[in-house]
């Protein structure tokens, strides 16, 4: 029998700190949700459980528009990012090295190396002038900007999967009379699908979460959920803000749980 104290896995204090960490992470979020369920008019007085503020939020035109904008923006940006990142990952993997490989990788990771606020300012300078010159005020600016900073997030899991992929599978397909396209469709793509999905979800959430770039680039009246929330914060804290925050929290839980179930089924 090995003595318990011998097991290096049981570090004294680690469990205590870990539990403290989980408590610290969750208490603010739980209190946020509890506050959103306050039936009272003021956030400082508790007047019983009610979904009243959710109803208020869901009838609020500003919130609904922001939600719609966010959804369209995140979906389009994540789609563009995933498709282009998949192509790029196919280009930069499964090779003995080619001229410019390093440059491509550097470019594709560049958005990760620049602070968000700097990228926001930089885009603002350029896009403000394009806005003035063309008069176009639509969602296009946000879509391209979001696509750009989402690409590295989609690129990472897809590239990692391709690097881990058994190269002989594609060789085997070619040996079995498959053309390049048939091999891609029947072998590479199905094996890559989980990573592409993961890349898409990562890009989607990164776009959905973005505050700074959207706040700087949005045209008047063009709020996303985070910028709408930020705008509301400038006024007074209300239970409605807590309700909207709780809804966003719920979306995250759903996404995490969803991806959890997806990967579960695969393995």
């Amino acid at each position: 029998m090995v003595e318990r104290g011998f097991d290096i896995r049981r570090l004294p204090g680690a469990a205590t700190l870990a539990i403290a960490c989980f408590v610290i992470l969750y208490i603010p979020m739980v209190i946020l949700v509890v506050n959103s369920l306050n039936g009272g008019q003021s956030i400082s007085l508790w007047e019983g459980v009610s979904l009243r503020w959710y109803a208020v939020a869901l009838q609020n035109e500003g919130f609904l528009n922001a939600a719609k904008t966010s959804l369209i923006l995140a979906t389009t940006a994540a789609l563009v990012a995933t498709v282009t990142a998949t192509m790029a990952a196919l280009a930069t993997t499964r090779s003995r090295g080619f001229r410019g490989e390093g440059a491509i990788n550097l470019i594709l990771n560049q958005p990760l190396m620049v602070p968000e606020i700097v990228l926001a300012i930089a885009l603002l300078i350029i896009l403000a002038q394009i806005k003035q010159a063309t008069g176009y005020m639509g969602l296009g600016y946000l879509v391209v900007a979001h696509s750009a900073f989402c690409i590295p997030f989609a690129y990472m899991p897809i590239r990692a999967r391709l690097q881990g992929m058994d190269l002989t599978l594609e060789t085997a397909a070619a040996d079995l009379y498959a053309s390049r396209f048939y091999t891609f469709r029947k072998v590479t793509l199905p094996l890559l699908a989980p990573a592409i999905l993961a890349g898409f979800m990562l890009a989607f959430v990164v776009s959905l979460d973005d505050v700074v770039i959207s706040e700087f680039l949005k045209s008047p009246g063009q709020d996303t959920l985070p910028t709408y929330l930020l705008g509301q914060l400038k006024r007074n804290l209300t239970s409605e803000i807590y309700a909207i925050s709780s809804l966003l929290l719920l979306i995250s839980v759903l996404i995490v749980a969803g991806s959890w179930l997806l990967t579960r089924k695969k393995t």
Partner: protein
Amino acid sequence: MATDAETLSIRADTRRRWVLALPAVTIITLFSILPLGVVVAYSFLTPGDYGNVKWIISFEGWFHVLFERDIFDDTVSLSDAHLTIVVRSVLLSLATTGITLVLGVPTAWFIATRPQRQRAFWLFLITIPFWTNLLVRTIAVQEMIRSDGIVNRLLLWLGLIDAPIQMMFTNFAILLGMAYVFLPLMVLPVYAAIERFDFRLAEAGYDLYASRLYCLRKVVLPQVKAGIIAGSILVFVPSLGAYVTPRIMGGGTTLMLGNLIETQFGQGRDWPLGAALSLTLTALVLVALVWYTRLTTRERRDG
């Protein structure tokens, strides 16, 4: 010659790869790299009268990052306001990294040493805040420490204080907010490193008469160090450039670099200075990243 045919096929392959990568490369070049180039250009221009710039080359923007000139007698002195903010940003980011290290590393250790089936559950608990909107999490912390938030109310009820403590809009508030929002960024890479660690190595260490501490230092730490460094970088870099959390937690008075940069781009403000400050921030981040890559590549060479 066959080797010519090989050269040709290598060229065709390279061309095909570039074509595939082109859309992603173009988007990032146009909407991330090019704008940064414009910022570089702006930092060497003269401020316009109503914001924006005049196309006259000037180094005043860079000059004003650290110095100020007295408007009456033109004497040059260090710009206390800017220096304070730069120093505060670096210190707060270091402190944030420190706090997340203290909490995050034991947590990662705890998760990685759970039995396989329980690990998924604990990881799930870490990933939920990780994927939750940063703004929402900042609002959640704000709710805790505002004047009639839960902490003050609890302290009042316990009789420990007579009047609410003003915690919001202080350095402490910013630090608390950043540590809270960036904590999951520390746990995940450290967890990944510990999870890869083969605990039989620690047993081998014990077998060779190592004490627990010696074993941790000489066997475990070298193998999980990469994860700890990665986690530190993942926390430090966004802390340094943080904008949203300091804005909410610090209010209008206590600023970090990100907020200082933003204010330079308002109407009638100094855009070249803002551009120079942006590049200063980017440079600080790059220093951290370069330090990180050098550390990890040396690690790989030695290992």
